[in-house]
Protein backbone atom coordinates (compact mmCIF):
# COMPACT_ATOMS: atom_id res chain seq x y z
CA UNK A 1 0.00 0.00 0.00
CA UNK A 2 2.77 2.39 0.92
CA UNK A 3 6.41 2.14 0.03
CA UNK A 4 9.46 4.34 0.42
CA UNK A 5 12.54 3.66 -1.66
CA UNK A 6 15.90 5.04 -0.58
CA UNK A 7 14.23 8.01 1.05
CA UNK A 8 16.44 10.86 2.20
CA UNK A 9 15.16 13.84 4.12
CA UNK A 10 16.80 17.11 5.13
CA UNK A 11 16.10 19.98 7.48
CA UNK A 12 18.22 22.73 5.97
CA UNK A 13 21.80 21.49 6.41
CA UNK A 14 20.78 18.46 8.46
CA UNK A 15 20.62 15.18 6.64
CA UNK A 16 18.08 13.33 8.79
CA UNK A 17 17.07 10.22 6.86
CA UNK A 18 19.53 8.08 4.91
CA UNK A 19 18.23 5.73 2.21
CA UNK A 20 15.22 4.57 4.20
CA UNK A 21 13.21 1.87 2.45
CA UNK A 22 10.11 0.61 4.20
CA UNK A 23 6.72 -0.64 3.15
CA UNK A 24 3.31 -1.08 4.73
CA UNK A 25 0.84 -3.58 3.30
CA UNK A 26 -2.89 -3.13 3.08
CA UNK A 27 -4.61 -3.36 6.49
CA UNK A 28 -1.34 -3.87 8.25
CA UNK A 29 0.07 -2.16 11.34
CA UNK A 30 3.75 -1.40 10.93
CA UNK A 31 5.77 0.19 13.68
CA UNK A 32 8.97 2.15 13.63
CA UNK A 33 11.02 1.94 16.78
CA UNK A 34 14.16 3.76 17.66
CA UNK A 35 15.75 6.15 20.08
CA UNK A 36 14.58 9.75 20.33
CA UNK A 37 15.91 12.19 17.77
CA UNK A 38 16.94 9.57 15.23
CA UNK A 39 14.43 10.53 12.55
CA UNK A 40 11.25 8.57 13.32
CA UNK A 41 8.95 11.58 13.23
CA UNK A 42 10.75 12.95 10.20
CA UNK A 43 10.05 9.70 8.36
CA UNK A 44 6.32 9.96 9.07
CA UNK A 45 6.24 13.64 8.17
CA UNK A 46 8.14 13.00 4.93
CA UNK A 47 5.58 10.41 3.92
CA UNK A 48 2.72 12.78 4.76
CA UNK A 49 4.10 15.68 2.74
CA UNK A 50 5.13 17.79 5.73
CA UNK A 51 8.87 17.90 5.02
CA UNK A 52 9.97 20.18 2.21
CA UNK A 53 13.32 18.64 1.30
CA UNK A 54 12.91 14.99 0.37
CA UNK A 55 14.83 12.81 -2.07
CA UNK A 56 14.11 9.25 -3.15
CA UNK A 57 10.70 7.83 -3.88
CA UNK A 58 7.45 7.38 -1.98
CA UNK A 59 4.56 5.52 -3.53
CA UNK A 60 1.03 5.09 -2.24
CA UNK A 61 -1.39 2.61 -3.78
CA UNK A 62 1.04 2.21 -6.66
CA UNK A 63 1.22 5.93 -7.37
CA UNK A 64 4.27 8.11 -6.92
CA UNK A 65 3.57 10.71 -4.23
CA UNK A 66 7.07 12.05 -3.67
CA UNK A 67 6.97 15.78 -2.97
CA UNK A 68 3.17 15.90 -2.92
CA UNK A 69 2.08 18.49 -0.32
CA UNK A 70 0.03 17.53 2.74
CA UNK A 71 -3.11 19.33 1.56
CA UNK A 72 -3.26 17.01 -1.48
CA UNK A 73 -2.17 13.87 0.37
CA UNK A 74 -4.93 14.30 2.96
CA UNK A 75 -7.35 14.27 0.06
CA UNK A 76 -5.66 11.13 -1.31
CA UNK A 77 -6.20 9.38 2.03
CA UNK A 78 -2.87 9.79 3.84
CA UNK A 79 -3.06 11.51 7.22
CA UNK A 80 -0.48 12.43 9.86
CA UNK A 81 -1.39 12.37 13.54
CA UNK A 82 1.12 14.47 15.39
CA UNK A 83 2.96 13.50 18.52
CA UNK A 84 2.34 16.95 19.98
CA UNK A 85 -1.28 16.73 18.74
CA UNK A 86 -1.40 20.09 16.90
CA UNK A 87 -5.02 20.76 17.87
CA UNK A 88 -6.85 24.08 17.52
CA UNK A 89 -6.85 25.27 21.14
CA UNK A 90 -9.54 27.98 20.95
CA UNK A 91 -12.05 25.77 19.18
CA UNK A 92 -14.46 23.24 20.57
CA UNK A 93 -13.87 19.52 20.33
CA UNK A 94 -16.62 19.35 17.72
CA UNK A 95 -15.05 22.10 15.60
CA UNK A 96 -11.69 20.35 15.77
CA UNK A 97 -13.34 17.19 14.51
CA UNK A 98 -15.16 19.02 11.72
CA UNK A 99 -11.88 20.55 10.57
CA UNK A 100 -10.52 17.02 10.39
CA UNK A 101 -12.97 16.51 7.53
CA UNK A 102 -11.83 19.63 5.67
CA UNK A 103 -10.53 17.88 2.56
CA UNK A 104 -12.85 17.52 -0.40
CA UNK A 105 -13.00 13.74 -0.31
CA UNK A 106 -13.76 13.64 3.41
CA UNK A 107 -16.62 16.13 3.28
CA UNK A 108 -19.34 13.75 2.02
CA UNK A 109 -18.53 11.36 4.89
CA UNK A 110 -18.39 14.01 7.62
CA UNK A 111 -21.65 13.05 9.35
CA UNK A 112 -21.06 9.33 9.14
CA UNK A 113 -17.48 9.59 10.36
CA UNK A 114 -18.46 11.94 13.18
CA UNK A 115 -20.97 9.43 14.50
CA UNK A 116 -18.40 6.65 14.21
CA UNK A 117 -15.68 8.64 15.91
CA UNK A 118 -17.90 9.73 18.82
CA UNK A 119 -18.90 6.12 19.33
CA UNK A 120 -15.25 5.10 19.40
CA UNK A 121 -14.38 7.91 21.81
CA UNK A 122 -17.30 8.35 24.23
CA UNK A 123 -15.16 10.76 26.26
CA UNK A 124 -15.07 13.17 23.34
CA UNK A 125 -18.84 12.96 22.98
CA UNK A 126 -19.13 14.15 26.59
CA UNK A 127 -16.70 17.01 25.96
CA UNK A 128 -18.04 17.94 22.53
CA UNK A 129 -18.62 21.61 23.36
CA UNK A 130 -15.49 22.16 25.44
CA UNK A 131 -12.51 24.05 24.05
CA UNK A 132 -9.67 21.79 22.99
CA UNK A 133 -7.30 23.70 25.28
CA UNK A 134 -9.27 22.51 28.33
CA UNK A 135 -8.78 18.80 27.62
CA UNK A 136 -6.47 16.58 29.62
CA UNK A 137 -3.42 15.06 27.96
CA UNK A 138 -5.14 11.76 27.32
CA UNK A 139 -8.28 13.39 25.93
CA UNK A 140 -6.22 15.65 23.67
CA UNK A 141 -4.39 12.61 22.32
CA UNK A 142 -7.71 10.94 21.60
CA UNK A 143 -8.98 14.08 19.89
CA UNK A 144 -5.87 14.11 17.68
CA UNK A 145 -6.52 10.52 16.63
CA UNK A 146 -10.25 11.18 16.21
CA UNK A 147 -9.54 14.25 14.08
CA UNK A 148 -7.29 12.09 11.92
CA UNK A 149 -10.09 9.57 11.47
CA UNK A 150 -12.41 12.33 10.30
CA UNK A 151 -10.24 12.75 7.22
CA UNK A 152 -11.57 9.39 6.02
CA UNK A 153 -7.97 8.37 5.31
CA UNK A 154 -7.08 4.76 4.48
CA UNK A 155 -3.52 5.20 5.64
CA UNK A 156 -2.73 6.72 9.00
CA UNK A 157 0.69 7.74 10.27
CA UNK A 158 0.49 7.97 14.04
CA UNK A 159 3.39 9.63 15.84
CA UNK A 160 4.05 8.26 19.36
CA UNK A 161 0.44 7.71 20.38
CA UNK A 162 1.36 6.71 23.92
CA UNK A 163 3.76 9.57 24.63
CA UNK A 164 3.18 11.12 28.04
CA UNK A 165 0.18 8.95 28.91
CA UNK A 166 -0.37 6.92 32.07
CA UNK A 167 -0.21 3.14 31.65
CA UNK A 168 -4.00 2.60 31.72
CA UNK A 169 -4.56 5.30 29.09
CA UNK A 170 -1.81 3.80 26.97
CA UNK A 171 -3.65 0.51 26.90
CA UNK A 172 -6.83 2.34 25.95
CA UNK A 173 -5.13 4.17 23.08
CA UNK A 174 -3.52 0.97 21.81
CA UNK A 175 -6.87 -0.81 21.93
CA UNK A 176 -8.40 1.98 19.90
CA UNK A 177 -5.64 1.75 17.31
CA UNK A 178 -6.25 -2.00 17.14
CA UNK A 179 -9.94 -1.32 16.60
CA UNK A 180 -9.26 1.27 13.89
CA UNK A 181 -7.01 -1.24 12.15
CA UNK A 182 -9.71 -3.88 12.36
CA UNK A 183 -12.11 -1.47 10.66
CA UNK A 184 -9.80 -1.50 7.66
CA UNK A 185 -7.22 1.25 8.08
CA UNK A 186 -3.56 0.65 7.36
CA UNK A 187 -1.36 2.14 10.05
CA UNK A 188 2.25 3.16 10.33
CA UNK A 189 3.19 4.22 13.80
CA UNK A 190 6.18 5.40 15.68
CA UNK A 191 6.74 4.20 19.24
CA UNK A 192 9.29 3.73 21.94
CA UNK A 193 7.19 1.38 23.98
CA UNK A 194 8.33 -2.02 22.81
CA UNK A 195 6.32 -4.60 24.81
CA UNK A 196 2.94 -3.20 23.81
CA UNK A 197 3.99 -2.62 20.23
CA UNK A 198 4.89 -6.28 19.86
CA UNK A 199 1.22 -7.14 20.42
CA UNK A 200 -0.09 -4.53 18.03
CA UNK A 201 2.29 -4.43 15.07
CA UNK A 202 2.50 -6.92 12.27
CA UNK A 203 5.92 -5.71 11.34
CA UNK A 204 8.59 -3.71 13.07
CA UNK A 205 11.35 -1.47 11.78
CA UNK A 206 14.21 -0.11 13.77
CA UNK A 207 15.45 3.35 12.85
CA UNK A 208 18.80 4.49 14.21
CA UNK A 209 20.67 7.62 13.16
CA UNK A 210 18.36 7.93 10.19
CA UNK A 211 18.98 4.39 8.91
CA UNK A 212 16.91 1.22 9.06
CA UNK A 213 18.87 -1.26 11.15
CA UNK A 214 16.25 -3.96 11.61
CA UNK A 215 13.16 -5.22 9.84
CA UNK A 216 11.06 -8.16 10.92
CA UNK A 217 7.94 -9.48 12.61
CA UNK A 218 7.18 -8.65 16.21
CA UNK A 219 8.37 -12.09 17.22
CA UNK A 220 11.68 -11.68 15.42
CA UNK A 221 12.06 -8.31 17.06
CA UNK A 222 11.56 -9.88 20.47
CA UNK A 223 14.33 -12.34 19.78
CA UNK A 224 16.75 -9.84 18.31
CA UNK A 225 19.71 -9.24 20.59
CA UNK A 226 20.46 -5.77 19.24
CA UNK A 227 16.91 -4.53 19.90
CA UNK A 228 16.88 -6.03 23.35
CA UNK A 229 20.11 -4.32 24.14
CA UNK A 230 18.78 -0.93 23.12
CA UNK A 231 15.38 -1.09 24.73
CA UNK A 232 15.81 -3.32 27.70
CA UNK A 233 19.45 -2.67 28.40
CA UNK A 234 20.19 -6.41 28.38
Amino acid at each position, binding site marked *: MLQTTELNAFYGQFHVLHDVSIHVREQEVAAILGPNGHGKSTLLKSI*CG*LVDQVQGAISYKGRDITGRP*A*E*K*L*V*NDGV*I*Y*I*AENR*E*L*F*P*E*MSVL*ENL*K*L*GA*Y*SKNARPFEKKNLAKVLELFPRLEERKKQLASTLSGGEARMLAIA*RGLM*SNADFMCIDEPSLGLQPNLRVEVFNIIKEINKQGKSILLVEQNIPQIAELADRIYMLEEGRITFEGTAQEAGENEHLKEIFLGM
Partner: protein
Amino acid sequence: MLIEYADVFISGLTNGSVYALMAVGLTLVYGVSKAFNFAYGSFYSLGGYLAWVLLAGIGIWGGYISVFIIALPLLMAFGYVTEKLIVAPLRSRSDWEIKVMMITLGLALFMDNFYQVAFGSRMKSLPPIVDGVWDLGDIVISYQDIVILVLSVSGILAFRWILNNTRIGMAVRAVAQNPEGARIVGIPKDRVFAATFAISTVMVGAGGVLLAQKYFVSPTGGWDILVKSWVITAFGGMGSIQGGLYAAFILGMLEAFVGYWFGMTWVLFALFAVLLATLAVRPQGLMGKWG
Protein backbone atom coordinates in the same frame (compact mmCIF):
# COMPACT_ATOMS: atom_id res chain seq x y z
CA MET B 1 -24.75 70.04 29.71
CA LEU B 2 -25.35 66.34 29.26
CA ILE B 3 -27.29 67.08 26.08
CA GLU B 4 -24.18 68.66 24.59
CA TYR B 5 -22.24 65.49 25.17
CA ALA B 6 -24.88 63.38 23.47
CA ASP B 7 -23.74 64.69 20.09
CA VAL B 8 -20.13 63.94 20.90
CA PHE B 9 -21.08 60.51 22.16
CA ILE B 10 -22.99 59.66 18.99
CA SER B 11 -20.13 60.85 16.83
CA GLY B 12 -17.70 58.68 18.85
CA LEU B 13 -20.00 55.72 18.54
CA THR B 14 -20.40 56.15 14.78
CA ASN B 15 -16.71 56.61 14.09
CA GLY B 16 -15.85 53.85 16.54
CA SER B 17 -18.05 51.40 14.66
CA VAL B 18 -16.35 52.16 11.32
CA TYR B 19 -12.91 52.00 12.97
CA ALA B 20 -13.91 48.65 14.44
CA LEU B 21 -14.82 47.34 10.99
CA MET B 22 -11.49 48.49 9.57
CA ALA B 23 -9.24 47.56 12.49
CA VAL B 24 -10.70 44.07 12.65
CA GLY B 25 -9.71 43.61 9.01
CA LEU B 26 -6.15 44.69 9.73
CA THR B 27 -5.83 42.52 12.81
CA LEU B 28 -7.35 39.56 10.93
CA VAL B 29 -4.59 39.60 8.31
CA TYR B 30 -1.96 40.01 10.98
CA GLY B 31 -3.44 37.25 13.16
CA VAL B 32 -3.69 34.76 10.32
CA SER B 33 -0.61 35.39 8.24
CA LYS B 34 1.60 37.65 10.42
CA ALA B 35 1.73 40.05 7.48
CA PHE B 36 1.38 43.75 8.13
CA ASN B 37 -0.30 45.62 5.32
CA PHE B 38 1.03 49.18 5.01
CA ALA B 39 -1.22 49.85 2.02
CA TYR B 40 -4.28 49.45 4.22
CA GLY B 41 -4.93 53.20 4.22
CA SER B 42 -4.72 53.34 0.44
CA PHE B 43 -7.26 50.54 0.24
CA TYR B 44 -9.51 52.78 2.34
CA SER B 45 -9.09 55.57 -0.21
CA LEU B 46 -9.80 53.06 -2.97
CA GLY B 47 -13.25 52.50 -1.44
CA GLY B 48 -13.81 56.26 -1.32
CA TYR B 49 -12.70 56.83 -4.90
CA LEU B 50 -14.76 53.91 -6.17
CA ALA B 51 -17.81 55.48 -4.55
CA TRP B 52 -16.93 58.88 -5.99
CA VAL B 53 -16.42 57.50 -9.52
CA LEU B 54 -19.71 55.62 -9.37
CA LEU B 55 -21.77 58.43 -7.83
CA ALA B 56 -20.24 61.64 -9.15
CA GLY B 57 -18.41 60.35 -12.21
CA ILE B 58 -20.89 57.91 -13.71
CA GLY B 59 -23.90 59.04 -11.72
CA ILE B 60 -25.04 55.52 -11.16
CA TRP B 61 -28.70 54.67 -10.74
CA GLY B 62 -29.63 53.41 -7.30
CA GLY B 63 -27.19 55.57 -5.32
CA TYR B 64 -25.27 53.99 -2.46
CA ILE B 65 -27.01 50.64 -2.78
CA SER B 66 -25.53 50.23 -6.25
CA VAL B 67 -22.19 51.49 -4.96
CA PHE B 68 -22.06 48.72 -2.38
CA ILE B 69 -23.20 46.07 -4.85
CA ILE B 70 -20.49 47.05 -7.33
CA ALA B 71 -17.66 48.23 -5.08
CA LEU B 72 -17.53 45.37 -2.57
CA PRO B 73 -16.85 42.58 -5.12
CA LEU B 74 -14.32 44.81 -6.87
CA LEU B 75 -12.53 45.45 -3.57
CA MET B 76 -12.54 41.74 -2.81
CA ALA B 77 -11.05 40.90 -6.19
CA PHE B 78 -8.48 43.67 -5.79
CA GLY B 79 -7.40 42.34 -2.37
CA TYR B 80 -7.19 38.77 -3.63
CA VAL B 81 -5.10 39.65 -6.67
CA THR B 82 -2.82 41.95 -4.66
CA GLU B 83 -2.11 39.17 -2.17
CA LYS B 84 -1.40 36.63 -4.92
CA LEU B 85 0.77 38.99 -6.96
CA ILE B 86 2.92 40.80 -4.42
CA VAL B 87 2.55 39.24 -0.95
CA ALA B 88 2.39 35.48 -1.58
CA PRO B 89 5.64 35.29 -3.62
CA LEU B 90 7.55 36.75 -0.64
CA ARG B 91 6.37 34.15 1.85
CA SER B 92 8.99 31.54 1.06
CA ARG B 93 11.83 34.01 1.64
CA SER B 94 13.67 34.77 4.83
CA ASP B 95 12.53 37.84 6.78
CA TRP B 96 9.44 37.92 4.63
CA GLU B 97 7.43 39.88 7.22
CA ILE B 98 9.71 42.89 6.76
CA LYS B 99 9.67 42.46 2.99
CA VAL B 100 5.87 42.47 3.05
CA MET B 101 5.91 45.74 4.99
CA MET B 102 8.27 47.28 2.45
CA ILE B 103 6.36 46.12 -0.60
CA THR B 104 2.98 47.19 0.78
CA LEU B 105 4.49 50.55 1.71
CA GLY B 106 5.62 50.83 -1.91
CA LEU B 107 2.15 49.87 -3.09
CA ALA B 108 0.66 52.57 -0.85
CA LEU B 109 2.89 55.26 -2.37
CA PHE B 110 2.07 54.02 -5.84
CA MET B 111 -1.66 53.99 -5.21
CA ASP B 112 -1.69 57.44 -3.58
CA ASN B 113 0.24 58.94 -6.48
CA PHE B 114 -2.05 57.19 -8.91
CA TYR B 115 -5.05 58.80 -7.20
CA GLN B 116 -3.37 62.19 -7.52
CA VAL B 117 -2.68 61.72 -11.23
CA ALA B 118 -6.08 60.27 -11.99
CA PHE B 119 -8.32 62.41 -9.80
CA GLY B 120 -6.21 65.42 -8.90
CA SER B 121 -5.08 66.47 -5.46
CA ARG B 122 -8.25 68.31 -4.49
CA MET B 123 -10.59 66.69 -2.03
CA LYS B 124 -13.66 65.03 -3.43
CA SER B 125 -16.93 65.35 -1.64
CA LEU B 126 -19.72 62.85 -1.83
CA PRO B 127 -23.45 63.16 -1.23
CA PRO B 128 -24.71 61.86 2.12
CA ILE B 129 -26.02 58.29 2.19
CA VAL B 130 -29.35 59.64 3.44
CA ASP B 131 -30.52 63.17 4.10
CA GLY B 132 -32.34 64.48 7.09
CA VAL B 133 -32.16 64.34 10.85
CA TRP B 134 -33.96 62.62 13.63
CA ASP B 135 -35.18 65.42 15.85
CA LEU B 136 -35.60 64.34 19.45
CA GLY B 137 -36.08 67.84 20.78
CA ASP B 138 -32.79 68.63 22.50
CA ILE B 139 -30.85 65.97 20.67
CA VAL B 140 -30.63 65.89 16.89
CA ILE B 141 -29.19 62.79 15.24
CA SER B 142 -28.53 62.75 11.52
CA TYR B 143 -29.94 59.74 9.71
CA GLN B 144 -26.56 59.44 8.07
CA ASP B 145 -24.87 58.65 11.39
CA ILE B 146 -27.51 56.04 12.12
CA VAL B 147 -27.01 54.43 8.72
CA ILE B 148 -23.23 54.39 9.13
CA LEU B 149 -23.55 52.83 12.57
CA VAL B 150 -26.03 50.21 11.42
CA LEU B 151 -24.06 49.31 8.29
CA SER B 152 -20.71 48.97 10.00
CA VAL B 153 -22.13 46.98 12.90
CA SER B 154 -23.86 44.72 10.34
CA GLY B 155 -20.54 44.39 8.55
CA ILE B 156 -18.85 43.27 11.75
CA LEU B 157 -21.67 40.85 12.56
CA ALA B 158 -21.54 39.41 9.03
CA PHE B 159 -17.80 38.99 9.41
CA ARG B 160 -18.23 37.18 12.73
CA TRP B 161 -20.87 34.96 11.21
CA ILE B 162 -18.56 34.04 8.32
CA LEU B 163 -15.74 33.33 10.75
CA ASN B 164 -17.86 31.11 12.99
CA ASN B 165 -20.17 29.35 10.58
CA THR B 166 -18.60 28.86 7.20
CA ARG B 167 -15.95 26.45 6.04
CA ILE B 168 -13.57 29.17 4.97
CA GLY B 169 -14.14 30.96 8.29
CA MET B 170 -13.23 27.84 10.23
CA ALA B 171 -10.15 27.40 8.05
CA VAL B 172 -9.14 31.00 8.77
CA ARG B 173 -9.41 30.46 12.52
CA ALA B 174 -7.56 27.16 12.25
CA VAL B 175 -4.61 28.77 10.46
CA ALA B 176 -4.55 31.62 13.00
CA GLN B 177 -4.59 29.24 15.98
CA ASN B 178 -2.22 26.57 14.71
CA PRO B 179 -0.67 26.81 11.23
CA GLU B 180 0.99 23.39 11.53
CA GLY B 181 -2.27 21.77 12.65
CA ALA B 182 -4.04 23.41 9.71
CA ARG B 183 -1.42 21.97 7.36
CA ILE B 184 -1.90 18.51 8.86
CA VAL B 185 -5.66 18.45 8.31
CA GLY B 186 -5.11 19.58 4.73
CA ILE B 187 -6.17 23.24 4.75
CA PRO B 188 -4.62 25.05 1.77
CA LYS B 189 -2.82 27.84 3.60
CA ASP B 190 -2.14 29.96 0.53
CA ARG B 191 -5.82 30.18 -0.31
CA VAL B 192 -6.66 31.11 3.30
CA PHE B 193 -4.05 33.90 3.26
CA ALA B 194 -5.43 35.29 0.01
CA ALA B 195 -9.02 35.03 1.28
CA THR B 196 -8.26 36.90 4.52
CA PHE B 197 -6.46 39.60 2.58
CA ALA B 198 -9.47 39.91 0.29
CA ILE B 199 -11.90 40.08 3.22
CA SER B 200 -9.81 42.72 4.96
CA THR B 201 -9.73 44.79 1.77
CA VAL B 202 -13.52 44.68 1.64
CA MET B 203 -13.73 45.76 5.28
CA VAL B 204 -11.45 48.77 4.94
CA GLY B 205 -12.87 49.67 1.52
CA ALA B 206 -16.39 49.58 2.92
CA GLY B 207 -15.14 51.85 5.71
CA GLY B 208 -13.87 54.16 2.98
CA VAL B 209 -17.27 54.28 1.33
CA LEU B 210 -19.02 54.93 4.66
CA LEU B 211 -16.71 57.70 5.84
CA ALA B 212 -16.11 59.32 2.44
CA GLN B 213 -19.10 61.62 2.64
CA LYS B 214 -18.21 62.66 6.21
CA TYR B 215 -14.52 63.37 5.72
CA PHE B 216 -14.04 63.74 1.94
CA VAL B 217 -11.74 61.66 -0.25
CA SER B 218 -8.18 62.73 -0.98
CA PRO B 219 -5.08 61.01 -2.37
CA THR B 220 -3.32 60.84 0.99
CA GLY B 221 -6.42 60.59 3.18
CA GLY B 222 -5.68 56.93 3.89
CA TRP B 223 -2.63 57.54 6.07
CA ASP B 224 -4.70 58.85 8.95
CA ILE B 225 -6.78 55.66 8.72
CA LEU B 226 -3.69 53.43 8.54
CA VAL B 227 -2.30 55.08 11.67
CA LYS B 228 -5.62 54.84 13.52
CA SER B 229 -6.16 51.22 12.52
CA TRP B 230 -2.64 50.47 13.61
CA VAL B 231 -3.11 52.19 16.98
CA ILE B 232 -6.38 50.30 17.50
CA THR B 233 -4.76 46.99 16.56
CA ALA B 234 -1.83 47.52 18.91
CA PHE B 235 -4.10 48.84 21.67
CA GLY B 236 -6.51 45.91 21.36
CA GLY B 237 -3.73 43.35 21.08
CA MET B 238 -2.07 42.29 17.82
CA GLY B 239 -4.13 39.56 16.18
CA SER B 240 -6.99 39.70 18.68
CA ILE B 241 -10.30 40.40 16.96
CA GLN B 242 -12.22 40.83 20.22
CA GLY B 243 -9.57 43.23 21.51
CA GLY B 244 -9.71 45.19 18.27
CA LEU B 245 -13.47 45.65 18.63
CA TYR B 246 -13.23 47.05 22.16
CA ALA B 247 -10.24 49.18 21.25
CA ALA B 248 -12.04 50.71 18.25
CA PHE B 249 -15.00 51.88 20.32
CA ILE B 250 -12.81 53.14 23.17
CA LEU B 251 -10.57 55.08 20.80
CA GLY B 252 -13.51 56.30 18.71
CA MET B 253 -15.01 57.73 21.87
CA LEU B 254 -11.67 59.18 22.98
CA GLU B 255 -11.28 60.82 19.58
CA ALA B 256 -14.73 62.39 19.77
CA PHE B 257 -14.27 63.81 23.27
CA VAL B 258 -10.70 65.00 22.78
CA GLY B 259 -11.80 66.64 19.52
CA TYR B 260 -14.68 68.32 21.31
CA TRP B 261 -12.73 69.58 24.31
CA PHE B 262 -9.32 70.37 22.83
CA GLY B 263 -9.76 70.40 19.04
CA MET B 264 -9.11 67.84 16.33
CA THR B 265 -5.37 68.57 16.21
CA TRP B 266 -5.00 66.85 19.57
CA VAL B 267 -6.70 63.63 18.53
CA LEU B 268 -3.69 61.69 17.23
CA PHE B 269 -1.62 62.96 20.14
CA ALA B 270 -4.23 61.64 22.57
CA LEU B 271 -4.53 58.31 20.77
CA PHE B 272 -0.78 57.73 20.93
CA ALA B 273 -0.59 58.90 24.55
CA VAL B 274 -3.24 56.35 25.53
CA LEU B 275 -1.55 53.67 23.43
CA LEU B 276 1.85 54.30 25.01
CA ALA B 277 0.42 54.38 28.51
CA THR B 278 -1.42 51.10 27.87
CA LEU B 279 1.58 49.37 26.34
CA ALA B 280 3.77 50.48 29.23
CA VAL B 281 1.51 48.54 31.59
CA ARG B 282 0.30 45.83 29.22
CA PRO B 283 2.79 45.35 26.36
CA GLN B 284 0.50 42.78 24.74
CA GLY B 285 -2.39 45.24 24.46
CA LEU B 286 -5.89 44.83 25.89
CA MET B 287 -6.48 41.24 24.82
CA GLY B 288 -3.34 40.19 23.00
CA LYS B 289 -1.19 37.25 23.93
CA TRP B 290 2.49 37.13 24.58
CA GLY B 291 4.73 35.76 21.88
